[in-house]
């Protein structure tokens, strides 16, 4: 539901482009990231990865490594407590034991006085392996005769029932209506298979952790991560220690995008600190980060869609196979989310989807901005264009005809808070000059052709739990502590703005406390586009709680009824209509701590719960680790790409990009624009360049040289964020999250533009020159 903004609050910065609070430290080199820290007596940690994709560990001799001068600890799996950790399936150990599951799977760790010594020591560890047949094809991995990677999986603690198939990690099936009874009624049917790559997060700061242990055995960790609370929980579980013995602090974080969700190298670094009794820092090289850490799920999507000749979408059947890699990580929620979004922002009355996450012998796939949705939407939006083509209909018109509106329910029956997809389509259509550009052949230089393509999309924002504390200082300034980790998206500034705007303060009067598990309230993590909505709500309501307490004190001081009080800019409370009757917040704070009431501390904690639970009777709903109604509120967007294709080389250049997003209400305008522009560019990489490549289970491009992400000259300067502000009732100042949805559309928008330019459908991304040329050659229209 949409609502009007509360304009009664004075001094609001909502909607303005407020510069980042941490800007000065980031432009001056003073911002401290994990690897910038050092401590007295600090040791350096390094990890040894498995050389084989699938092998049994026969024996390990670490004596030579231990004997190397400067080496303080050499740890292997057998040295650690046998504690499995993981989110939905506890299937991972801090170091492999008995078996290795991928090339790079950490099998030993060293702490030494110098990094170079630690690395030398790794080479002295002698491990005998017995190679096993690797499982590399996720579809073959499900067949009965496939080797089994997790032969002990019956022992793993899980949050849901695992599929019976040999390497099945998660199976989800959703159905509304029944497409199999409808195909006969369809005038047009498109059917294809789509291939999507594993995309590496390529946060600019590689994974890094510093762990220290104090005299009582309490471990303190500084790390590049997306949640202090999650890391605290995993380290405690791995070490078999109570969470009260683990403290986790967030320094500045150099990007995450999902790759630093859950845990990375924190447990093993903590073990090294515990083993040596010294602080240990472990920063991965880029090559190790790429080989050992995580990625977006690659995979295959089989999709069939049918429509009537007037363009009404009638039926879809979809099978999604995602390669989850060696450990489950967040796979059991990624493939269900892919399934949930495989219908797109449309009404398709007969829809069936099955989605798999499958274990294979490659590095684990994880959360990555969009969380399964970019994969599903690539297939879905490609088919919408192909149906429009077959019907001779404008793809924009087809989308407008079928897009959800008003009281339509989302797939699985989830209620839509604000059906803004139509507004997004209209806005992006106007801004891009769509009608004019689709009518004609776009003028292009010799040897090149130009095209324009669209994608419509939806995503979630919200989910799980967050809390916040706002405390009033004696001088009337406030401190906000929400446990949010700002990984670069700007939440420190945004949450400060929400507090300031709730209390009429200047931003300079709000202190934003760093996330520290010793003092911060619980916050799930920086993921799921959830910070603005979840923590934003928590800090807003905690601020309102502070306001109530300030007003109670002000009632006494100003001798009036609470209803006569008003906030005034800069931290003052006054009597309505009486300009001279005013006190500073400091007076209320002073009275509370020296006279009556006690310190003023506002708090709010909550968990996202849908207003109406979905009815499992109206659909088939199987294998969701977390129910689809619990994944937060829906957001919508429509994006258009204009591209130029070289007819000789197949090279594609994106010339201009328009992205219309329903953001509810921008809290920080430039930050919202920056999120959208950054997300679009990250997914231009997904669409055109980025692909992790394996040869027999070995990653063959683990360097920035061999794995290209877009540089400034590879992407357009003209990336236009177009904001639609329909404030959402349940959101702080109406603001919805935008961090992921911006990544969902570029792959199909770009491949649809390629099709408009050269008439060829690219069904495998990245759309490299070779694949574009292949598609052109296979297409008789060219």
């Amino acid at each position, binding site marked *: 539901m949409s609502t009007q903004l509360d304009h009664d609050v004075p001094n609001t910065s909502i909607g303005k*482009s407020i*510069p*980042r609070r*941490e*800007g*000065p*430290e*980031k*432009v*001056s*080199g*003073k*911002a*401290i*990231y994990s*690897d*910038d820290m*050092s401590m007295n007596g600090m040791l350096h940690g390094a990890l040894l990865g498995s050389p084989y994709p699938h092998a049994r560990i026969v024996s390990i001799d670490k004596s030579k490594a231990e004997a190397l001068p400067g080496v303080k600890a050499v740890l292997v799996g057998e040295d650690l407590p046998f504690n499995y950790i993981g989110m939905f399936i506890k299937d991972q150990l801090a170091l492999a034991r008995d078996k290795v599951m991928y090339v790079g799977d950490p099998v030993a760790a060293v702490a030494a006085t110098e990094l170079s010594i630690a690395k030398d020591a790794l080479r002295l560890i002698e491990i005998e392996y017995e190679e096993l047949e690797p499982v590399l094809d996720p579809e073959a991995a499900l067949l009965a005769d496939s080797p089994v990677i997790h032969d002990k999986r019956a022992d793993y603690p899980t949050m849901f029932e695992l599929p019976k198939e040999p390497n099945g990690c998660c199976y989800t099936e959703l159905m509304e209506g029944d497409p199999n009874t409808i195909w006969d009624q369809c005038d047009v049917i498109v059917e294809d298979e789509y291939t999507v790559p594993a995309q590496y*997060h*390529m*946060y*600019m*700061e*590689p994974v890094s952790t510093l762990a220290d242990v104090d005299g009582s055995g309490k471990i303190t960790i500084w790390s590049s991560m997306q949640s202090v609370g999650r890391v605290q929980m995993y380290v405690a579980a791995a070490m078999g220690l109570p969470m009260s013995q683990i403290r986790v602090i967030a320094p*500045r*974080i*150099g*990007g995450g*995008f999902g790759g630093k969700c859950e845990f990375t190298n924190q447990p093993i670094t903590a073990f090294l600190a515990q083993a040596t009794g010294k602080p240990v820092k472990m920063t991965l*090289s*880029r090559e190790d980060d790429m080989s050992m850490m995580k990625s977006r799920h690659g995979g295959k999507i089989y999709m069939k869609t049918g429509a009537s000749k007037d363009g009404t979408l009638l039926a879809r059947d979809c099978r999604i196979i995602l390669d989850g890699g060696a450990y489950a990580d967040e796979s059991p929620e990624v493939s269900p989310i892919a399934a949930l979004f495989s219908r797109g922002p449309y009404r398709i009355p007969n829809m069936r989807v099955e989605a798999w996450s499958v274990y294979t012998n490659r590095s684990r796939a994880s959360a990555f901005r969009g969380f399964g949705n970019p994969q599903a939407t690539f297939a879905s939006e490609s088919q919408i264009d192909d149906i429009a083509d077959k019907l001779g209909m404008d793809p924009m018109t087809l989308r407008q005809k079928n897009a959800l509106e008003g009281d339509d329910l989302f797939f699985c029956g989830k209620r839509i808070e604000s059906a803004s997809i139509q507004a997004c389509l209209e806005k992006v259509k106007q801004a891009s000059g769509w009608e004019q550009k689709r009518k004609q052949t776009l003028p292009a230089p010799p040897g090149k052709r130009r095209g324009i393509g669209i994608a419509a999309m939806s995503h979630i924002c919200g989910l799980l739990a967050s809390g916040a504390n706002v405390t009033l200082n004696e001088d009337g300034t406030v401190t906000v502590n929400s446990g949010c980790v700002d*990984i*670069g*998206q*700007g939440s420190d500034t945004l949450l400060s703005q929400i507090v300031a705007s709730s209390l009429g303060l200047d931003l300079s009067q709000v202190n934003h406390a760093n996330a520290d598990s010793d003092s911060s309230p619980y916050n799930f993590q920086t993921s799921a586009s959830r910070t603005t909505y979840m923590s934003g709500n928590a800090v807003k309501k905690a601020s309102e709680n502070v306001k109530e307490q300030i007003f109670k004190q002000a009632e006494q001081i100003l001798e009036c009824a609470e209803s006569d009080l008003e906030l005034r800019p800069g931290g003052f409370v006054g009597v309505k209509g009486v300009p001279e009757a005013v006190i500073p917040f400091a007076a209320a704070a002073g009275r509370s701590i020296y006279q009556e009431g006690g310190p003023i501390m506002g708090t709010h904690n909550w968990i996202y719960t849908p207003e109406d639970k979905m009815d499992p009777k109206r659909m088939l709903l199987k294998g969701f680790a977390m129910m689809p109604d619990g994944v937060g509120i829906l957001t919508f967007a429509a994006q258009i790409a204009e591209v130029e294709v070289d007819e000789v080389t197949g090279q594609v250049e994106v010339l201009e990009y328009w992205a219309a997003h329903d953001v509810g209400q921008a809290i920080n305008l*430039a*930050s919202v*624009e*920056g999120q*959208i*522009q*950054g*997300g*679009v*560019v*990250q997914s231009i990489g997904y669409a055109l360049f980025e692909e992790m490549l394996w040869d027999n289970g070995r990653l063959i491009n683990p*360097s*920035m*040289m061999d794995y290209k*992400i877009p*540089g*400034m*000259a*590879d*992407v357009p*300067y003209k*990336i236009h964020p177009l904001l639609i502000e329909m404030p959402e009732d349940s959101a702080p100042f109406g603001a919805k999250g935008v961090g992921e949805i911006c990544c969902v559309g570029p792959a199909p928008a770009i491949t649809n533009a390629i099709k408009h330019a050269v008439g060829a459908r690219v069904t495998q991304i990245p759309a490299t020159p070779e694949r574009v040329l292949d598609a052109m050659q296979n297409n008789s229209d060219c």
Partner: protein
Amino acid sequence: MTNKQIVKLEVNGDTHELLVQPTQTLLHVLREQLQLTGTKCGCNNGVCGSCTIIVDGQAVRACLSLAVASSEKEITTIEGLEENGKLQSLQQAFIDKQGLQCGFCTPGMIMSSLALLAKNPSPSIDDIREDLSGNLCRCTGYVKIADAVMSAIEVEQS
């Protein structure tokens, strides 16, 4: 180790006599020995540009430079830009235009931009895109970085 050499580095106006391994990069020495951690290591093989510093007026990748080869050269890192505690207009422009998000690429991006403006005081948007294409950023999509550089030029010229 016996093969260490003494090197005299002039960094941000200060002279340091240091004992370094001949194989050590300038990046390693700046970060580990001089604690100048503003210069970042994103790839350590000369691709990402996060370690860009200015050596004798040229933008240089500290991860590809040997410390022993940097003797007697004038080295400027991100920590050397403030004048009397005040940010340079280019630094301020990165803040004002939100030409940064996580901030990890920012020092290198600013050093490359400074080197560009030193040789071409009024670059076009395309000059900027071309010249800064060796500095990778994963957060911003580059638009606001280009805007920051353009805005700094306007400030300088007004």
